[in-house]
């Protein structure tokens, strides 16, 4: 992960104190609860952005935290705790997309073929940034979210997908271009960031 990039918005940059971490390693459920309280929101937000479904995002958070309760014993602090947890969340999201065969083909042309058929953005969608994002193919959405919002570099994305850096650059470029095209269909509409919601 590129540690020189600006602090991610999702809150994975938060830290866990050493005492809580030590208690969590010993299997203390109250320490697990502290970690959950700190990171549940960024974890759920990342899953929502990638998967677009509350039920799927809840499954991801549950999987990640259940895994964390065991894996925290092996956490040695080589990477910041939030970065470690983010990686677990991303891997869980990719696994879920793969298991549902939603990850899409490797070929960028084929990846965007279906997205092209969705046509112009509906008026209601234009106001909903999330809905706009969900119009992208899952793999493209994942790359866009990880690069633009979570600070992943193209090198890291290439490793994550087993592809070259130019591959993720190409997917990202196409994704942004597609978003711009959809936005241009309603140039008079001012996009507003949505407030946080449960």
């Amino acid at each position, binding site marked *: 992960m590129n540690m020189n990039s600006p602090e991610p*918005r*999702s*809150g994975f940059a938060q830290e866990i104190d050493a005492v809580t971490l030590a208690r969590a390693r010993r299997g203390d*459920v109250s320490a*697990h*609860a502290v970690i*959950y309280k700190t990171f*549940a*929101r*960024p*974890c*759920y*937000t990342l899953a*929502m*952005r990638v998967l677009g479904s*509350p039920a799927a*995002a*809840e499954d991801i*958070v*549950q999987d990640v*935290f*259940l895994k964390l*309760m065991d894996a925290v014993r092996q956490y040695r602090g080589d990477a910041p705790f939030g970065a470690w947890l983010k990686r677990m969340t991303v891997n869980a999201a990719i696994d879920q997309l793969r298991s549902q065969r939603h990850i899409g083909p490797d070929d960028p042309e084929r990846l965007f073929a279906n997205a092209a058929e969705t046509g112009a953005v509906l008026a209601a969608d234009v106001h909903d*940034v*999330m809905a*706009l*994002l969900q119009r992208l193919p899952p793999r493209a959405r994942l790359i*866009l979210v990880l690069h*633009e*919002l979570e600070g992943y570099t193209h090198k890291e994305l290439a490793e994550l997908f087993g592809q070259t850096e130019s591959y993720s650059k190409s997917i990202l*470029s196409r994704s*942004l*271009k597609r*978003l*711009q095209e959809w*936005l241009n269909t309603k140039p008079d509409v001012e*996009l*507003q*960031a*949505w*407030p*946080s*919601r*449960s």
Partner: protein
Amino acid sequence: MAEQELSLKSLRLAGLPEFDPPPQLWARIEAAHARRRQQRRLTYWSAAAGVVLAVAGLVAVVAPPAPARPSALLQLERQSQELEQVYAGLAQPFSPLESEVELHAIETALQQAYDRGAAAEELAPLWEQRNAVLSSLIALSADGAQLTRI
């Protein structure tokens, strides 16, 4: 806008909403964790019990079956142990050389008989001999007399 300049920020999409998980999610995770721990514990103890049973079964198959000991033989063994304890507990045990040699010879014969898996019919007379020698030694020690056996 040039393609390379595109970003979520330039598209004014950087302010994506953040989401809070439903409040009951942690309770579900805790419950799932507790169920998983219980299941692991059950699996562990089942596996441990399985290993114990497997080892017991293996021992039963590999090890030769212990010969059934008639109660008469057990009685002789027990009697012999009691006499041995009494004799060992004497303040001044009477222990002539020939009796020690005889006792040693009986014990050697007993050991050899057990080593070859001898039957109770062969073992019982040897235990009787041992008991007789021990009884004699105890009696003589009590009397302070000399052992005389024909």
